[in-house]
């Protein structure tokens, strides 16, 4: 199902068209693929907010979306499916009533046994065995719990509990099967399994790409030019990383083996994406330095851009 479009853009349902445009532009500036080369997550998010804005940014489409006439992908919502379409099917068998046929059954011993009784229900019919159905649950865990593994307890709607051991490196959407922890079976049938879908909350600093951890780290103007050692957070604690001289924004350092322990013992890396950040206030010194530098050593970082577009 498509997410709520308002929450995709991070606005309330009642905001003005102007606020929606503003929210979209703000996100688009941050997520535009050309501003985040190589960042697949940003690209996916950008597509999502753009699709949301296509609908919410258009007064008519927004009105229809609010009324529930179209869904989050702009598709017409299906017409109501009437109960009678299901009522004869297996799915609705538990609702169908076949009680109260005694008067009909009395006609004949042969036919009287056939109707009015559902297999396996009390009061007649042959006993039958059926394995219990699988129960489905969702479990929300923190980013670091997913990375390092954890023990969690789910409280069930009937007040019972279910203990789940989360293996290190579990990924969003992964489903864990707990044998025999589902619904009880019938007759000789054993219980079903519990299926637990893992949802991972995002971390403010760390992001995950496969078994690699991605972290954006700001560096100063002088670190970018001269290089140096900087402190970088990893999932295993802080480490020092070497910034080579002449590092522009977007340069990525690879810290071998600092990622997630993947399947088959393969260890992921940590990718450190550098972002050059100028001081908040540009003082006279820096200004003079830049002016002098420009006059003597101008360079053209946009040449390729012009050639290609």
């Amino acid at each position: 199902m498509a997410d709520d479009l308002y929450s995709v853009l991070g606005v309330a349902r009642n905001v003005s068209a102007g606020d929606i445009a503003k929210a979209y532009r703000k996100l688009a500036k941050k997520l535009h693929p050309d501003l985040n080369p190589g960042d697949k997550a940003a690209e996916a998010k950008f597509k999502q907010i753009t699709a949301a804005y296509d609908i919410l940014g258009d007064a008519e489409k927004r009105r229809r979306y609010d009324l529930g006439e179209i869904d989050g992908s702009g598709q017409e919502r299906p017409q109501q499916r009437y109960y009678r379409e299901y009522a004869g099917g297996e799915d609705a068998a538990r609702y169908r009533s076949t009680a109260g046929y005694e008067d009909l059954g009395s006609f004949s011993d042969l036919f009287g046994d056939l109707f009015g009784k559902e297999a396996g229900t009390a009061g007649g019919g042959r006993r039958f065995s059926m394995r219990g159905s699988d129960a489905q649950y969702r479990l929300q865990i923190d980013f670091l719990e997913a990375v390092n593994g954890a023990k969690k307890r789910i409280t069930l709607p009937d007040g019972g509990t279910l203990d789940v051991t989360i293996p290190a490196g579990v990924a969003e959407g992964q489903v864990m099967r707990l044998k025999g922890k589902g619904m009880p079976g019938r007759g000789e049938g054993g219980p079903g399994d519990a299926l637990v879908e893992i949802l991972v909350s995002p971390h403010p600093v760390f992001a995950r790409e496969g078994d690699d951890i991605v972290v954006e780290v700001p560096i100063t103007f002088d670190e970018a030019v001269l290089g140096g050692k900087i402190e970088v957070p990893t999932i295993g604690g802080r480490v020092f990383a070497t910034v080579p001289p002449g590092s522009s924004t977007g340069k990525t350092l690879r810290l071998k083996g600092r990622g997630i322990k993947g399947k088959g013992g393969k260890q992921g890396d940590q990718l450190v994406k550098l972002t050059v950040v100028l001081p908040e206030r540009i003082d006279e010194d820096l200004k003079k330095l830049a002016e002098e530098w420009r006059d003597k050593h101008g360079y053209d970082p946009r040449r390729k851009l012009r050639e290609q577009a």
Partner: protein
Amino acid sequence: MLSERDIIAKIQHLTVTRLRVWVQQGWIRPVAKAEEAFTEADMARAALIRDLEDKLGFDEEQVPVLLSLIDQIHGLRVELKTILEVLDDLPEDVHAMVKLRIEESKRAR
């Protein structure tokens, strides 16, 4: 399987509270106690109850009576269908005999 939220999102004027009351009353009987325990049939049934209450104006005393009658009709329909399917598989001369007997029986009434 569908969750409460899926059902509420698809059926207008349905709230969590209303759906839970219907489940509590036994008008809707999810197959499991899990979070995602509803089927397409449950969703259509919820839409039916919503129509009975909102569009047709039946109250909560009347709805279970209607549901019980509807469930009995569908129970009968399925059993009738079973009989017809079985008859259909039997040889031609049996068809003819059954037809004849049904007509006789109706005339006798």
